[in-house]
C-alpha cells in the first residue's frame, strides 16, 4: 500500500483519525476488562505522544456513540499541544447528547455502536484534507473499538471500507472487547492496516505506541502484526443476519439469506430455486466499485 505521496512534507508526517468507542452498553457491561477512565488516560497519553513526534502531526478524535458520533478533538484548531481538558469536556457533552437521543427512540439493546457513521466522518475529514492543497499529512484511521459488530451496518461499513481503500487510507483496528470484530478484520485486511486484539489491556499504551504509532513511511521497514485469520462472512440485506451461505443476486450482487422472487435492491426477477443449493454462495469478495 503506497500512500498518496506528499513531497514537501517529511516522510513521517501523519494525520491520525482516532475513533473511540463510547458505547455505554459496552463500557458498563461486566465483561469489559477495564474501566473507561483507564482506557481514556492511556489513549490520551498515546495522542500526546503522536503530537510529540512531529510538530506537523495532526490528531482528530471522533467519538463513536450508540446513537450518534461526533468530532470531539482536532489538534489543528489548537496550538498543537493536546489539551486534555477540552477533549474531556467535549466528550462529556457528546455522551450526554448521545444518551438523550437514546431516550427518544428506544432501540433494543443489540449493543453495537455506530461504527459506520464515525468511519464515514473520518473519511469525509480526510477527503477535505486531500482537497486542501498539494501538501498534506499522510492520513490513517485508528479504530479503538470494543462493542460487537452491528450486522445492520454491514453495507454502510463495507462501503466506507472500499472508499478508504480507494483513497489509500489504511484503517488500523485495535479491538478492546472480548470478541474479535469481523468488520474491523475485513477493514484492516482490505485497506492494508493493522488489526490487533491486545492480550493484556493494562498495557494498552505500550500496544498503541509500539504498533499503532508507526507512521506509514516506517511501516515499510517494520514487522507489524499480521492478520491471523479474517472472518469474511457477510450480512444478508433482508434480515441483517451474518450468514455463511446464502443467495446472491446475479445482477447487483446483493446478498439474501432466503430465496426471494425479486431482488429488493435492483428489482430483477429470479427464477425458482433448485432443491439443492449446489454452489456455495458464500460471498468472498464484494463488488469493487
Amino acid at each position: 500500500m503506497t500512500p498518496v505521496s506528499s513531497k514537501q512534507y517529511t516522510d513521517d508526517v501523519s494525520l491520525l483519525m482516532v475513533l473511540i468507542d463510547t458505547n455505554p452498553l459496552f463500557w458498563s457491561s461486566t465483561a469489559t476488562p477495564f474501566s473507561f477512565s483507564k482506557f481514556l488516560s492511556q489513549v490520551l497519553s498515546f495522542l500526546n505522544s503522536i503530537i510529540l513526534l512531529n510538530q506537523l502531526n495532526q490528531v482528530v478524535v471522533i467519538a463513536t456513540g450508540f446513537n450518534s458520533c461526533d468530532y470531539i478533538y482536532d489538534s489543528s484548531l489548537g496550538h498543537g499541544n493536546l489539551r486534555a481538558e477540552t477533549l474531556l469536556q467535549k466528550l462529556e457533552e457528546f455522551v450526554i447528547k448521545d444518551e438523550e437521543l437514546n431516550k427518544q427512540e428506544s432501540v433494543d439493546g443489540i449493543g453495537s455502536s455506530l461504527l459506520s457513521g464515525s468511519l464515514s466522518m473520518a473519511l469525509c475529514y480526510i477527503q477535505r484534507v486531500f482537497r486542501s492543497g498539494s501538501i498534506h499529512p499522510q492520513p490513517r484511521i485508528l479504530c479503538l473499538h470494543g462493542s460487537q459488530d452491528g450486522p445492520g451496518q454491514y453495507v454502510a461499513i463495507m462501503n466506507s471500507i472500499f472508499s478508504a481503500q480507494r483513497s489509500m487510507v489504511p484503517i488500523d483496528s485495535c479491538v478492546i472487547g472480548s470478541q474479535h470484530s469481523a468488520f474491523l478484520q475485513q477493514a484492516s485486511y482490505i485497506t492494508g492496516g493493522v488489526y490487533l486484539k491486545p492480550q493484556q489491556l493494562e498495557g494498552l499504551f505500550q500496544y498503541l505506541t509500539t504498533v499503532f504509532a508507526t507512521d506509514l513511511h516506517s511501516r515499510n521497514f517494520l514487522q507489524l502484526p499480521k492478520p491471523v485469520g479474517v472472518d469474511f462472512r457477510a450480512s444478508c440485506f433482508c434480515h441483517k443476519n451474518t450468514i455463511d451461505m446464502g443467495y446472491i443476486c446475479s445482477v447487483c450482487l446483493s446478498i439474501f439469506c432466503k430465496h426471494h422472487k425479486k431482488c429488493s435492491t435492483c428489482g430483477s426477477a429470479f427464477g425458482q430455486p433448485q432443491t439443492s443449493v449446489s454452489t456455495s454462495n458464500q460471498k468472498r469478495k464484494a463488488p469493487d466499485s
Partner: protein
Amino acid sequence: MPQVKIIAKNFMDMVSSLPAMKLDKLYENAFICEAILRSLPPLAKKYVLQLLYIDVPVSASSLQEWVLVDGASKHRVAVDRLIQLRVFTETVDRKKEATYRLNLMFQMNLRKHVVHGGVLPREPMAANITVRLPSLEELDNYAAQQWECFLLHLINSAEVEVTTKSISPSMMKVFQRGLLSQRDNEGSRLTESGFQFLLMDTNAQLWYIIREYISNSEDRGVDSADLISFLLELSFHVTGEAYNMNTLDEIQRITVKDLADLGLIKLQQGRKDSWFIPTKLATNLSISLSDASSRKQGYVVVETNFRLYAYSTSKLHCEILRLFARVEYQLPNLIVGSITKENLYKAFSNGITADQIISFLQQNAHPRVAEKVPSVPENVTDQIRLWESDLNRVEMTPAHFFDDFPSRDVFEAACDFAREYSSLLWEDSKKMQLIVKTEIYAHMKEFLSHQK
C-alpha cells in the same frame, strides 16, 4: 539548493557534536528533549516511543527483530543517531551482546510530556496589557525586512544607507568571517562561500548565521549549551504572541536583542513592561533544513534572449542579481538586467558555479514562468554551462619532471617503464627529458636507482 560545505545541516548536528557532559545537561530541559525527538529519523522516533516505559536495558537483537530485511540500513542509521545524541546508552556485556537504554533524564522528561501534554515555555502576556500586537502578516514582513537589512549590511553593500539598528561591529565581524575576505587596500570582498551564502534560501542562511553565533558564544562569555537551549526553547513559543521580557535572565536578554536585529524577534516597549514577539524565523529554528514550508514566492523571469526581469522592490535582490548579471535599469518594482558573458565570467572567478546560478534562477522563478517546464529557457541554461566549461579548458595533472639521464639506455628504459604504467605524459628524446604522473613517482625512483 546549492549544497554548501560551510553549513552544518541543522541544529541537531551541532547538538550532537557537543561534549557528553554538556549534552546530558541539555536534556534537563524538557523542550530540548522534545526538539531532539522531533529531529530524529522516523524509525528512531519510534524506538524512543517504544522504549519510553521500559525500565530495563533492551538487547539490540530484540530491537532488530522488528525490522524487515529492507529496513536494516535505516535501522542502523536510527540507532547510530540515537547513540550519537546520547539518547540511547549502549552497553556491551560479556557475550558481546549490546543492550540499549534510554537516557534517564530524557526518558523522564518525555514521560512527563506524554502524561501531562505539552506546555508552553512561558505564558504569553494577557492581551490587555500589551498595546496592539502586529498581525502575523506584518510580523512576517518585519522579519523579512529585518533579515534583508542584515544581509545588506553583512555584504557591506555600497548601496546600503545605515538603516539597521546596527548590530555591534564586533558581532558583524564574526558573521562576516568566512564570507568576506578583508583586504586593507581595496576593502572587503565576498569570498566564494560568501557568494554561495547569498544564493541560499533564508532558512539555510539563518542556520549559518546562528551557527556562527553559537560557536562564537564562548568568546562573549556565554555558555554555548545555554544558548542552544534558549534558542530551542524559543522555537516552541507561539508566533505572534507577546512574552514578557521579565521572564528572561540577563544573558537571554542580551541574546534577544541580538536576535531582534536578525529579525527573529520583534521587541516592543509598553508603558511599564517590554515584551518580545517571536517571528516565524524563530519558531522555525528547530525544524530541519529539509522542510521547505517557508518557501517564498519567486520573482525572476528569464527570457530566451538572456534578458532578466526581476519583479522585486528589494535592494538585496538587486545586489544578488548583480553577482552574475548586468543590471540595466531599476524601476520602483522591477529590475531589468541581462545575463552576459562578462558578468558570468566575473561570477565564475568569484567561485560561483553555473549550477548554483541556474538553480537560483529556477528556484526564484516568477509564478508565471514557474509553471512552465523548464522555468528557465534551455538555451540560457546551456549557454551558462558552456561559458563555465570554457573556463576549464586546461586540465591539470600533478606530475614529476626527470632529466639529466646518465645514458640513453637508461632514458629509454625509464620511458618504457613509465609507458607500462601508462603514466608517461611527455618525453623529449633529444634532450632526454620526461614527465610522468605523480602516482608512479615512487616506483620510478626505485626503478632508476636499480638501473645504476
